[in-house]
């Protein structure tokens, strides 16, 4: 198998100008202050995983309280709210967004499009360090007087900055907002890189319609994030001014503990509009890279070309565009004009069309494929099932009349965790099992991987399926303790305890995964350059793991699309993208 095309194959690679690479001179500039997108991607991933583990522990603490109320004295109501808030914010922004875009984006984009590196390596490095700073500021709020903010992950004013909310009149909310602003600045530096790299640094022959869907997903999500994160930035700045300088952007006139506060006329609804203008695209900022990655995993591990490639690309773009006009479906109960609700319910349901197209295409790719139930494939299949489940309850909640009674119940928590928690995390796991051999040169242990998969998959359903049910019973979300109520049967408490036990087990199963990551680094089976027999460029590098500059002396030339699996008449069941036509039959 050839990994680079020689001059005999006709077309030289010279058309793409070489990026001027800054070559590191010391250990420090090579592994710490690195400008190599691959190292930066790994740094992003490790940081995101570490802070994600903190959020995992917070969810355990929450579940202990919900499952066994009154048992654990060390969880006070204030702390419970702090756990909720930090768990949500960390998972959505600092883990999922950072891992998909900063982690996978950095590692995969240059390799998959045949570039040497990102186009602005220095800004790329800064992007990571600002992200790390944002994480540290966030962590600092755990140790600040008054602790982190307990305003809920949506940080709705006015309560977010009042003294009744944990961290509201202390450091918590200030550090939270500052950390978000840093995150957005850091992300913008990285995001500019991802977009311009995809547009300008593609290898010769790599047309947009020959890009792997992973790159399409990450690219579109980055464009969306660049346009959506400013809304979070604006709301964070304005709330910070309300809190620190006493302005009244969001704060209405109100009386707190008998004291009239100095605010007047501000609009909490304005914050909600700004927040969700970011918040809804954020769902797809996480989902689109997941869609892209899962398409590649399914195609590779089913040895089958992706069904409806063009339609997959169009669907990604259409979902990206539509996701900017659905934000107010998070605000049906906010008291906004009901006609808006009708409009936003319609746009919300329309998004289901391109999304359903993607699901059908995944299924049709699997149809009569040569399915290898490898660990990445198991996670990809689990994603499809979970995403369909979470998507269906999304159709319920997208309708105003159904949403109004369910809005403040655990049903929303269950829906959200299925569609945006469990589903993308499965993709992340699948992607790590899939690309770990390229990153380290060694395979992850298969037995540990299967154990990790089955406990996580079955466990996630045992957690979140019953949660839908207790939501329908009317158990409210965000309550520290519901005590005895007329409408909630006592069995709900038993179910809650069951969910908590499952959450502890699933959380603990992640230790197997972490151990596997560390153990396989040294002891894993050597992977070789292309263990999955995949077609995309990252598997065709001359060295594994790829060094700085990725391609050695010559950039690859792309001759075909990324899904040439099981081509009739070809010698192997896959033809790499950089294989010239004359050699495909070899």
């Amino acid at each position, binding site marked *: 198998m050839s990994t680079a095309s020689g001059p005999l194959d006709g077309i030289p690679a010279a058309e793409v100008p070489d990026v001027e690479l800054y070559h590191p001179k010391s250990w420090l500039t090579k592994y710490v202050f690195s400008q190599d997108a691959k190292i930066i991607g790994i740094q992003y991933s490790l940081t995101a995983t570490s802070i994600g583990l903190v959020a995992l522990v917070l969810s355990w603490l929450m579940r202990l309280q919900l499952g066994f109320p009154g048992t654990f004295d060390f969880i006070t109501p204030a702390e419970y709210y702090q756990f909720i808030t930090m768990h949500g914010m960390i998972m959505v922004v600092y883990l999922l967004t950072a891992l998909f875009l900063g982690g996978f984006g950095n590692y995969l984009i240059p390799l998959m499009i045949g570039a040497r590196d990102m186009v*602005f390596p220095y800004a790329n490095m800064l992007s990571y360090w600002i992200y790390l700073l944002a994480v540290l500021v966030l962590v600092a709020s755990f140790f600040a007087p008054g602790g982190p903010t307990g305003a809920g992950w949506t940080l709705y004013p006015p309560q977010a900055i009042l003294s009744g909310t944990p961290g509201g009149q202390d450091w918590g909310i200030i550090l939270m907002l500052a950390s978000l602003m840093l995150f957005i600045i850091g992300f913008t530096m990285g995001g500019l890189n991802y977009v311009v790299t995809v547009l300008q640094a593609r290898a010769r022959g790599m047309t947009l319609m020959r890009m792997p869907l992973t790159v399409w997903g990450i690219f579109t999500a980055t464009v969306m994030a660049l346009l959506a994160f400013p809304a979070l930035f604006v709301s964070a700045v304005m709330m910070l001014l309300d809190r620190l300088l006493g302005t009244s952007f969001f704060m209405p006139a109100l009386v707190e503990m008998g004291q009239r506060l100095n605010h007047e006329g501000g609009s909490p609804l304005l914050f909600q509009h700004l927040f969700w203008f970011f918040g809804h695209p954020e769902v797809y900022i996480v989902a689109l890279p997941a869609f892209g990655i899962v398409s590649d995993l399914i195609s590779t591990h089913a040895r089958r070309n992706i069904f409806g490639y063009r339609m997959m690309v169009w669907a990604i773009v259409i979902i990206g565009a539509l996701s900017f006009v659905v934000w107010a479906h998070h605000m049906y109960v906010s008291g906004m004009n009901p006609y808006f609700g009708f409009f936003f319910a319609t746009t919300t349901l329309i998004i289901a069309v391109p999304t359903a197209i993607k699901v059908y295409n995944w299924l049709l790719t699997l149809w009569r494929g040569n399915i290898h139930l490898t660990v990445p494939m198991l996670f990809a299949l689990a994603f499809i099932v979970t995403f369909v489940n979470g998507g269906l309850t999304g159709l319920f909640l997208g309708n105003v009349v159904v949403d109004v009674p369910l809005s403040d119940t655990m049903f929303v928590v269950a829906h959200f965790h299925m569609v945006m928690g469990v589903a993308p995390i499965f993709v992340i796991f699948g992607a790590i099992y899939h690309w770990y051999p390229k990153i380290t040169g060694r395979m992850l242990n298969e037995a540990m991987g299967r154990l990790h998969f089955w406990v996580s998959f079955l466990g996630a359903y045992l957690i979140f399926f019953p949660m839908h049910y207790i939501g329908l019973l009317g158990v409210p979300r965000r309550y520290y303790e519901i005590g005895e109520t007329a409408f909630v049967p006592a069995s709900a408490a038993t179910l809650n305890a069951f969910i908590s036990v499952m959450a502890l087990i699933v959380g603990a199963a992640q230790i197997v995964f972490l151990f596997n990551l560390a153990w396989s680094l040294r002891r894993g089976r050597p992977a070789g350059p292309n263990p999955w027999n995949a077609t995309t460029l990252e598997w065709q590098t001359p060295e594994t793991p790829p060094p700085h500059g990725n391609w050695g002396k010559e950039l690859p030339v792309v001759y075909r699309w990324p899904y040439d699996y099981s081509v009739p008449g070809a010698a192997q069941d896959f033809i790499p993208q950089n294989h010239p036509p004359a050699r495909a039959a070899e």
Partner: protein
Amino acid sequence: MSAILIYLALIGSVVAWWLSRQRLMAKPWLEVGVPVDAPGMGASGIPPARLGLWVFIAVVGALLTLFISAYLMRMHMSDDWRSLPTPPVLWFNTALLAFSSIGLHRAQMAARIGWREGIAVGLAAGGLSALAFLAGQYLAWRQVMEEGFGVATNPSSSFFYLITAVHGLHLVGGVVALGKTAYRTARGAPLAQLRLATELCATYWHFLLVAWIVLFGLLLHG
């Protein structure tokens, strides 16, 4: 939110126009080999830095438009809005920023014909008048403050300080880049490099001028 939706529609049409030229109707599974002359077959010839700047401008545009959206919504959502006395110095500042923009345009032209002195003069004129603009904005702050409008007095003044500060900070960032270009000019960097650098500065300045005119109009409206 109508301002930001209109802005996104504009960005969306640019993206749609660009995508329409990318052969999205191609059937990649039937095409093998490297088609040589078809458009959109590889990376375009635009320097990455220029494209990067345009993407950055689109992001800053979104940020400023969101401030405009918030301004208009806050203005119409309650009845406590008092209109702000607009300090006359803002008109003078606007002229300064326009002059600064012209200076950078001249620098760009000089770079194009390879006239090094012209680059230096253009950059100096542009940079100094940009600094004068920033000083003028500070003066405007003082005047508004003296009129009795502090940061928290009324949403109109809160927005005034916030929006001018955000715009000013972006200009400060530009001044840093300009300083770097001026330094390179003084060191006798190759013309090709200066051509790109002055062009990027000029583009960014024109954008900040347009942005300021829109924001100034907004402040007058409020």
